């Protein structure tokens, strides 16, 4: 059996999803957005259901379905909501559900890091910028959405290309996952303990397995023993005796992996961040030199919003 699902089913879903998304995209208020959104959600649900039905014995955790539905739904909202603020908030929802999926994938540290960095830092920056860059509604009028927010650009073409991509991607990996090398049945997750004598010592000591005056001489994870010595006497503590919390946590493993195998990349990442900071500072400090045209337009715009200055400089530029 080559595929997880028959390709034509996948394509069918893709076509339907594309059509649904087309409907869902904002079109200046005239489009049946809600209908599209509902259809899209329905199709996503159906797709997942199809998968679930097909692989009943090895289904993923139920939380997977919850998080992925929330995530995909929120993502759809991100791109369909005309108000940037809402879009950003929906994005936070996506981030959170992705975090959930990370947890399911036993990447706890990444899950929280994601939420903290994205939802806590980046998205807040976005919100600041959105607020900076959006005209607050005047008191006497209802909020006017910018036309570029309310109308999607070439929704059909984008959906076609997008779902075409989805179709080929899914075809590929539904066909391909089968040929993946089977994962190692078991990894020695304790191997790193050899590099953490202090942790081992602390946990052994707090579990009372390490007597006074004894010190760890060797941690042999291969043989599954901790060799302790006091003076001349040496004894082994076998794995079966180890306390519950002595295992290697995800954070620890990640930390070792990062620093051992990618030290250079970390440096580079640091430089990138530093440069980004400097760049942002430099850019935001820059005084905008507006040319005459831009000044005129801005004056007109201000005149428009305040309803003040009548235009003396000519017809209003094409701000359609």
């Amino acid at each position, binding site marked *: 059996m080559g595929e997880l699902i028959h390709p034509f089913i996948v394509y069918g879903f893709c076509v339907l999803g594309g059509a649904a998304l087309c409907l869902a995209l904002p079109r200046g208020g005239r489009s049946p957005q809600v209908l599209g959104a509902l259809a899209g959600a329905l199709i996503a649900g159906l797709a997942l259901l199809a998968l679930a039905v097909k692989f009943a014995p090895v289904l993923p955790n139920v939380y997977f379905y919850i998080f992925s539905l929330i995530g995909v739904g929120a993502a759809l909202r991100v791109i369909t909501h005309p108000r940037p603020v809402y879009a950003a908030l929906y994005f936070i929802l*996506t981030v959170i559900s992705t975090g959930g999926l*990370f947890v399911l994938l036993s990447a706890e540290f990444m899950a929280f890091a994601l939420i903290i960095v994205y939802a806590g830092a980046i998205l807040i920056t976005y919100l600041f910028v959105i607020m900076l860059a959006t005209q607050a509604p005047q008191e006497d009028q209802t909020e006017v959405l910018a036309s570029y927010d309310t109308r999607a650009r070439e929704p059909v073409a984008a959906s076609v290309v997008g779902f075409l991509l989805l179709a080929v991607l899914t075809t590929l990996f539904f066909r391909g996952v089968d040929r993946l090398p089977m994962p190692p049945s078991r990894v020695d997750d304790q191997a790193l303990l050899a590099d953490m004598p202090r942790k081992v010592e602390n946990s052994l000591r707090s579990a009372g397995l390490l007597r006074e005056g004894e010190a760890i001489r060797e941690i042999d994870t291969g043989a599954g023993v901790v060799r302790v010595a006091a003076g001349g006497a040496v004894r082994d503590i076998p794995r079966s005796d180890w306390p519950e919390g002595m295992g290697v946590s995800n954070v620890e493993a990640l930390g070792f992996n990062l620093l051992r195998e990618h030290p250079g990349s970390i440096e580079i990442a640091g430089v990138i961040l530093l440069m980004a900071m400097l760049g942002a500072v430099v850019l935001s400090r820059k005084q905008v030199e507006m040319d005459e045209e831009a000044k005129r337009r801005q004056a007109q715009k201000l005149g428009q919003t305040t309803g003040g200055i009548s235009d003396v400089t000519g017809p209003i530029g094409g701000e359609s």
Partner: protein
Amino acid sequence: MTLAQTGAPAPMAPSTLGHYLLVSALLLVIGLIGFVTRRNLIIMFLCTELMFQAAGLAAVAFGRYHLNLTGQTLVIFILTVAAAEAAMALALVVLLFRRKESLNAEEWQDLKG
């Protein structure tokens, strides 16, 4: 069925990986479509962030499947780049907005040179 897992992670079925990849692909495509259809610079950036999410999810899923940490390491770097990108991009957006009082990406076509 609990959310939290303890001890060494168990091997994952290939079909489960397929599920995750499907979600990842969905996020990617949605982000892409958003990027193409929306004109608001900020939302376009949000869409790129969506695609980052998709990539991160796929990376972590693969890492989980192979029971190694490379995927997660990759996500750390993705995070880094995303943060840097966000800082720079948003600074630029502010700058651009100051010039034209608009977030419409189409107004900056002349930046092509």
